[in-house]
């Protein structure tokens, strides 16, 4: 069951195709990391999902209902923070929450609860104009979760936070997901952040969804990119020996690069190279990290499109 599902979502701005057939599937109770470089179309997708942009083509379903059929009932169960946090800077944090509490019909106690949850309990009466960027970001999160929504959409929630704040934010979002079963759709261009937070990942580039699946599936791709590095006293001679074993080695600046090998194969290769009188200086497993996968997806597209 998907909390959010889009089908062939297309959005054009004048002659530019901003989104080209996005089929987003956000499973319930997941933390979905929506990843992509700046300008990939992440914010446009999220704006369409919330009805902030008029849909041109495709379908959007939230909680199994079409957005245009039951907009208010759906939005009652959704919290959001798109781009920068939105609030009134001539009012205090508490007043900002109070005006939303009246509209969203949630208990007044929730104002204190969310302020405490995001670490703003001591500054609730301070005008938000005096808030730092990090405090504003926290208040934006507090606003998004005030009415205890089942689904929260956050666009770059760690923007402006210091490293400590990023860790706190991540822990808060994971706690919301774990303890309250909140489904989170978090967009980011920070790969490391998504890797630490998300259970599911969607990679968007130039308006197209390049990958969608669980973090485990993405990591399996990552394992496919693993290789073994071998540095010897004579790489050329070692490469010839490896070739005789049916193992094609690529010569790099830092030695020989071989396909991923299991422990037995590594031991055999080292034994044969040493027997041939070549010194083995280093054997290492080279891990293809998410960044290389992501850059591979993004660069592949660039090369194909240029061709």
């Amino acid at each position: 069951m998907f909390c959010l599902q889009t089908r062939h979502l297309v959005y054009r701005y004048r002659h530019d195709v901003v989104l080209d057939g996005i089929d987003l599937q956000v499973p319930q109770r997941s933390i979905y990391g929506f990843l992509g470089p700046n300008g990939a179309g992440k914010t446009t997708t999220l704006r369409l999902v919330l009805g902030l942009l008029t849909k041109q083509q495709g379908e959007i379903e939230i909680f199994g209902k079409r957005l245009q059929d039951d907009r208010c009932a759906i939005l009652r169960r959704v919290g959001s923070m798109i781009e920068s946090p939105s609030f009134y800077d001539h009012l205090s944090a508490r007043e900002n929450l109070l005006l939303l509490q009246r509209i969203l019909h949630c208990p007044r106690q929730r104002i204190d609860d969310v302020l405490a949850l995001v670490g703003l309990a001591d500054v609730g009466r301070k005008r938000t104009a005096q808030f730092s960027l990090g405090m504003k970001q926290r208040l934006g999160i507090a606003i998004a979760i005030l009415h205890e929504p089942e689904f929260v959409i956050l666009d770059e929630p760690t923007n402006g936070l210091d490293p400590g704040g990023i860790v706190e934010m991540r822990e808060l979002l994971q706690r919301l997901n774990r303890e309250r079963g909140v489904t989170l759709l978090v967009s980011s261009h920070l790969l490391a952040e998504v890797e630490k937070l998300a259970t599911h990942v969607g990679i968007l580039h130039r308006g197209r969804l390049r990958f969608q699946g669980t973090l485990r599936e993405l990591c399996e791709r990552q394992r496919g990119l693993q290789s073994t590095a071998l540095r010897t006293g004579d790489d050329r001679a070692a490469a010839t020996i490896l070739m005789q074993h049916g193992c094609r080695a690529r010569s790099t600046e830092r030695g020989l690069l071989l396909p991923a090998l299991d422990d037995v194969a590594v031991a055999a290769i080292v034994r044969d190279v040493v027997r041939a009188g070549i010194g083995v200086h280093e054997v290492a497993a080279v891990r293809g990290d998410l960044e290389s996968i992501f850059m591979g997806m993004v660069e592949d597209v660039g090369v194909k499109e240029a061709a």
Partner: protein
Amino acid sequence: MTATFFDVLRGEWLKQRRSLAMWMVVAGALFTPAIILALRLLRYRELPALHASADYWTRLWHSAWESSAVFFLPMGAVLATSLIVQIEFRNNAWKQVHALPVSKATIYFCKLAIILSMLLLFVALFSVATWLTAAIPAVIVPGLQMPIAPIPWRDFVLDDFGYIAGCLPIAALQYAIALRYRNAMVPIGAGFLLWVGTLGMLSTRWASLSPYSVTMLQYIGEGSERKIPAPAFDIHATALVYFAIFVIAGYVLFATARQKG
């Protein structure tokens, strides 16, 4: 549960707390009565004779409304409307408003209701402050009594409603423009130009065609001698028709905007 009109209205009202629009309405309403009061207190020796005159309230009312009907009320409507809408643009909050479980009609009409209550507040504050220009000297100046003439309440209340009706088309048109443009100078500039244009039309009998003319025409029409031609149309009926047209047009533009926030 979907938010009701009243819930959203309470939220909108809270947004006006300490806002520039609220301060401007209060300052604009009190400005002319404050000048009148200051002048009366400076010339306190003339007050006993003035308070004894039979047409005291009518003359006070007419002189107090002079600057307000021509300048403060129409320009106040222009500025207050633009500033009330600008709160959302300045705080980048339209996207939050549109992501709430609230219908577009509720958003549009709640904000309009706040604008109209600001106008109501302006006229109410102005009327009370005008009364205070007589009451305060009566308390402060030794031996001075309240004016002996009875207050023509009915005429004053009717006047107030007339001025409020005169502001309706200004507020509705300014609202439609302000919702459309992020830059506050666009609605303020448009309002100022239309106000100046209306001043230029006042000497013709077609002045009532301008939606910005009603408060001015009402004030001039109440003078003892008519200095301008009689309006071609009933000014208050015209104002109400304009108001209805601008409100509907504004709502259509607001509800059909491709990008919200």
